[in-house]
């Protein structure tokens, strides 16, 4: 079909999956096994998309004989509360059966001689012992791609979704977007959508996350979905100054030491455990640098040859990059700095109401980093071991419930109006048709200037946050005047547009939480609040004449549904 001179391809499916990382591909597979016709739309290549291929391959693997209560208590303490124990317990248990099933079906796990997944223990993020599996993340994603394709999932790659479509009653009916390499528009008719498009990195200085720009979170917010716990969307991970590397938390768990220019161990200086939870380490690093005791060196000389080999196997791409720099980080201390990772290590995202990923928009489901993760990771970071567990399990559950929703809805058939599609397509090609306008790169820089400033995202004050918020609002208005040079740049324009909206939600939520915990540090409220702050924030976009802003409310964890969709274990029993 041709629309105003643009080529348009039309698709119909029962469940549209947006994003193809660990969560998206798991959800696609689960929905297909539940009988739905599934279409996956992703910006990259399914199996090498999102942050999952770089996720370090350390997955929590708690067996029934382990001390689950002990793990939960330690986790709650280190991540400074806001965890929902019942939800976390269910995620941990489902995660074990999920990985057991994947192990049986040939997933690239490290195995014992008898073929069972090999468990190892790691003192990660200050925890006493985390039982974990060792996974080759890149191969794991290829395995999930094959699994999805074998179940009949169709793929629409290098495709950016720009808008979700609703019918007159507010129910979801589909989406529009574009394929950036072929330069054509895409219309997808779908009664159920699973948003698994990842978090928002604001293109931070860290490996493998430049492609996650909060697309799904912003698109859902524009549709009226609530965003929860956004104030925790400001994570940092220590990264090597030579090269955007990750795997720091594993290196620290193996005995790596961070030292300032005076040679002091910075964790000891700040009275922190070794290894420290990521948010505490990041704060210590930022303070050391601000107070002029940088650069910070990461001393890995105490790590044995065996441990080093194991790390290199877990992080083959980082190891390759580091080898090519010609420096041996294990032989000589090398400067590291706090690399900004936005919401990837934080816990904010689209608010879900039940464990099937159901949101307040009928037909919209969420999974992975795009979904709020506070019930599982609290105010701190899930680090790799819990974030991967959440991605897989939330994907499995959201895939199942989306497939069931679609089945129930199909009897009536989704109704959409020509006007809704027109409006969506117009918005999509807007930056291409503008003759003058801002460039995506310059607005991205301005956005980063606000978001990446440690005083805005880590050493927060009411005045600082409000100044940043009004600046972000200006930038967000300017993103409506972006001009794209070509289809490739069109994707960048929409990414900047989305990332600006996510930043606004993040800052608006941070103003409301008047206490400090986890990733949210307020200089004007330096202590952790009392029981009245054991609540989560929810930001909802409010149309205010021609403009809009976020209205932030507090809500109680007790309102969360804790029953996962039925039948997940049956699916894994085959």
């Amino acid at each position, binding site marked *: 079909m041709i629309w105003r001179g643009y080529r348009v391809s039309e698709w119909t499916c029962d469940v549209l999956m947006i994003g193809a990382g660990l969560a998206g591909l798991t959800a696609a597979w689960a929905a297909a096994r539940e009988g739905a016709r599934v279409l996956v739309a992703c910006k990259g290549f399914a199996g*090498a998309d999102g942050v999952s291929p770089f996720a370090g391959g350390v997955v929590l693997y708690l067996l029934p004989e382990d001390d689950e209560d002990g793990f939960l208590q330690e986790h709650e303490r280190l991540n400074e509360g806001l965890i929902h124990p019942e939800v976390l317990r269910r995620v941990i248990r489902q995660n074990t059966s999920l990985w057991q099933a994947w192990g049986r079906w040939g997933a690239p796990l490290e195995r014992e001689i008898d073929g069972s997944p090999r468990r190892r223990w790691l003192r990660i993020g200050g925890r006493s012992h985390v039982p974990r599996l060792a996974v080759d993340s890149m191969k794991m994603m290829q395995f999930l791609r094959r699994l999805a394709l074998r179940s009949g999932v169709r793929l629409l790659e290098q495709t950016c979704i720009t808008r979700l479509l609703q019918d007159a009653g507010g129910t979801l009916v589909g989406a529009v977007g574009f394929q950036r390499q072929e330069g054509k528009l895409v219309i997808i008719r779908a009664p159920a959508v699973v948003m698994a498009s990842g978090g928002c990195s604001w293109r931070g200085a860290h490996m493998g996350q430049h492609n996650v720009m909060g697309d799904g979170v912003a698109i859902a917010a524009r549709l009226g979905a609530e965003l929860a716990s956004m104030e925790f969307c400001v994570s940092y991970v220590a990264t090597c100054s030579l090269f955007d590397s990750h795997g720091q938390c594993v290196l620290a768990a193996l005995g790596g030491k961070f030292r300032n220019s005076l040679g002091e161990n910075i964790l000891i200086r700040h009275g922190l455990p070794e290894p420290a939870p990521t948010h505490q380490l990041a704060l210590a690093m930022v303070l050391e640098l601000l107070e002029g005791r940088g650069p910070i060196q990461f001393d890995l000389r105490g790590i044995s040859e065996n441990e080093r080999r194991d790390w290199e196997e877990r992080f083959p791409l980082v190891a390759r990059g*580091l080898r090519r720099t010609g420096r041996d980080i294990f032989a000589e201390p090398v400067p590291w*700095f706090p690399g900004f990772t936005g919401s990837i290590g934080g816990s904010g995202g689209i608010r879900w109401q039940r464990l099937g990923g159901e949101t307040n928009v009928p037909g919209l489901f969420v999974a992975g980093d795009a979904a709020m993760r506070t019930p599982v990771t609290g105010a701190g970071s899930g680090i790799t071991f819990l974030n991967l567990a959440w991605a897989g399990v939330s994907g499995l559950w959201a895939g199942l419930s989306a497939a069931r929703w679609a089945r129930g809805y199909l009897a009536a058939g989704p109704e959409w109006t020509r006007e809704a599609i027109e409006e969506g397509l117009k918005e999509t090609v807007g930056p291409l048709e503008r003759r003058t306008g801002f460039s995506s790169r310059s607005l991205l820089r301005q956005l980063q200037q606000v978001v990446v400033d440690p005083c805005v995202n880590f050493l927060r004050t009411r005045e600082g946050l409000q100044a940043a918020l009004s600046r972000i609002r200006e930038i967000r208005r300017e993103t409506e005047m972006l001009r794209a040079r070509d289809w490739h740049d069109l994707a960048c324009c929409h990414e900047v547009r989305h990332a600006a909206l996510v930043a606004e939600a993040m800052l608006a939520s941070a103003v409301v939480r008047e206490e400090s915990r986890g990733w949210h540090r307020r200089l004007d409220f330096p202590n952790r609040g009392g029981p009245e702050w054991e609540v989560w924030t929810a930001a909802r976009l409010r149309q205010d004449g021609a403009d809009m802003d976020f209205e932030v409310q507090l809500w109680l964890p007790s309102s969360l549904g804790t029953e996962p969709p039925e039948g997940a274990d049956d699916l894994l029993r085959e």
Partner: protein
Amino acid sequence: MICFVNEERCVGCGLCVRVCPLDVFRMVPRDGRRKPVACAVYPEDCMSCFICEEYCPANCLYVSPERSPLHAVWPFHEEIEKTKNGGNK
């Protein structure tokens, strides 16, 4: 963050174009070549993730590990640039 393509070795399969998470590559025609060859047409978007290298069947791609200089909006960017080149002293 620059990606070098050895055009002599490129077999023109187009896999790098498909797999790149940031859409850095396009296939472009070259004189004397039957098939278009890979070209990093948007190198400034490369994030050195090595995915193209992982997938390339002809081993004709090389991703430089060098971190491109951090833009001035980055906190501590001067310090980081200094440590990158000046060693760890």
